[in-house]
């Protein structure tokens, strides 16, 4: 299956290991990501003001690229746009829904972007996890070459995959999609309280204090619940939970660091793909000693 793929800025910079591991794991499952030939920023934050149409220009422009790809034959009648970053997923999908709700806005947008082909509202934005679910977790099970049996994992959903309700890929309060994935990878997902608690999001730029406080709560809750490591799908959550452990350690010297991985890295490990694909040197807290001690690497 060939599917149009929107990377987003972090997947090309700080989360390159997320992108590589996702592309290669997908390949193992027969799913080919076809990157949009041209793409711009997803828009990052969905405008909530009724009359703010300007900030839908960026997401819609990316959706138009999907139509172009269908026309050029880069993909074959595939109007779904695959995303990896939870934030991009949320922003892009919210624009598709806004246009469906307020059709008049689409006329304004198309008139404004007169150099592009008109957007017709037909693109559906999906997250890679949804494609994995649709493809069947049994298919993943078939690809597992290295058992993760001894690994206890805290699946961290954050907010962007789950909220608001009409965007979310799973139940906002009791999500299970990560659990299903982890089980199919032969790992053991743990049940824990902080799986959808806020990571502090953009406050990480100008209020590291709040972010490290929230991070400390999330990370220690995972540890108390028995987790060896945490998985996530959001580069911003990953940054706040992984890189901010430096500040947490300074504030709480007794704190023991815990690795935070992208779910696709775990897939790459279980599928026994190349070390380069796993990209374990991209994580701030080095997960290698843990994985070695568990006999996985």
């Amino acid at each position, binding site marked *: 299956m060939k599917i149009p793929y929107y990377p987003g*800025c972090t997947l*090309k*910079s700080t989360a390159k290991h997320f992108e590589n591991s996702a592309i290669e794991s997908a390949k193992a499952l027969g799913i080919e990501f076809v990157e949009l030939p*041209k*793409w*711009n*920023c997803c*828009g990052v934050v969905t405008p909530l003001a009724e009359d703010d149409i*300007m*900030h839908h*220009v*960026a997401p819609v*422009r990316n959706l138009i690229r999907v139509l172009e790809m269908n026309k050029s034959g880069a993909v074959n009648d595939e109007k779904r746009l695959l995303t990896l970053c939870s934030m991009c997923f949320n922003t892009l999908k919210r624009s598709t829904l806004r246009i469906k709700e307020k059709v008049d806005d689409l006329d304004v947008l198309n008139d*404004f*972007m007169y*150099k*592009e082909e008109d957007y017709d509202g037909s693109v559906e934005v999906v997250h890679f996890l949804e494609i994995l679910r649709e493809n069947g977790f049994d298919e993943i099970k078939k690809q597992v070459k290295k058992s993760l049996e001894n690994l206890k994992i805290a699946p961290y959903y954050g907010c962007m995959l789950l909220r608001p309700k009409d965007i979310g890929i799973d139940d906002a309060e009791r999500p299970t999609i990560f659990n299903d994935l982890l089980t199919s990878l032969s790992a053991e997902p743990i049940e824990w309280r902080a799986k959808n608690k806020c990571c502090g999001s953009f406050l990480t730029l100008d209020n590291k204090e709040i972010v490290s406080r929230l991070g400390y709560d999330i990370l220690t809750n995972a540890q108390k619940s028995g987790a060896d490591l945490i998985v996530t799908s959001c580069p911003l959550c990953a940054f706040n939970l992984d890189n901010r452990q430096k500040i947490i350690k300074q504030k709480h010297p007794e704190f023991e660091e815990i690795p935070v991985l992208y779910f696709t890295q775990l897939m790459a490990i279980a599928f026994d793909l190349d070390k380069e694909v796993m990209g374990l040197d991209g994580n701030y807290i080095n997960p290698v000693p843990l994985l070695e001690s568990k006999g996985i690497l």
Partner: protein
Amino acid sequence: MMKSKENMVTVYIMGDAYNVPESSTIITAMEYSGFQLTTGVGCREGFCGACATIYREKGDYKLKGGLACQTVVTDGMTLAQIPFMPAEKPIYDLKELKPDINTIKELFPTIFRCVSCNTCTKACPQDIDVMDYIQALKKGNIAEAADISFDCIRCGLCALRCPAEIVQYNAATLARRLYGSYLAKKSPEVDESIEDIKAGKYDKELEELTKMDRKTLSEKYYARETKLR
């Protein structure tokens, strides 16, 4: 001798009507109408970028941009000349910079205000995909930005029209400087040539060239072109 009326068009320079020959460019139309341009004009060949201007054509609501020396007037055109672009320009020492996204963030934070409206691309007289190189910089892809912006003549129309007040052309200049200094493939041939120049290998030829009269110079130049073909 009276010029026939069919060859004249009416343009509105800063609001006032003037009759000018229909083959005029914006610059020659202004000069024909008695304006003396001392700034906002340069090479008159579409290369220097000094004469960026905005205009509107009859019956069209769109404010268009172009180079005044390259844009031919149309009947009913409303035009003006822009003498100077008061755009922000950060000062930096190229030797102290790293070719990464943090440099972009530090020197051009406005880039991250881009809403992808594409107004810059629509304004560019060089047909450069301006928004695409700004988006490339937003991703930290300096090589891509340098490549897309290569034909930029720094006329400033992109910055003039940008609702996010980004100074695209200065950011593009930085991208090309970073690319040239840090990212481009090194070519030993160039270094060798520089050494040759320093050692005076071409001094004699250069001296001969500078002393040549225009006719000889012209002949030699076109002979060279023929030889290349």
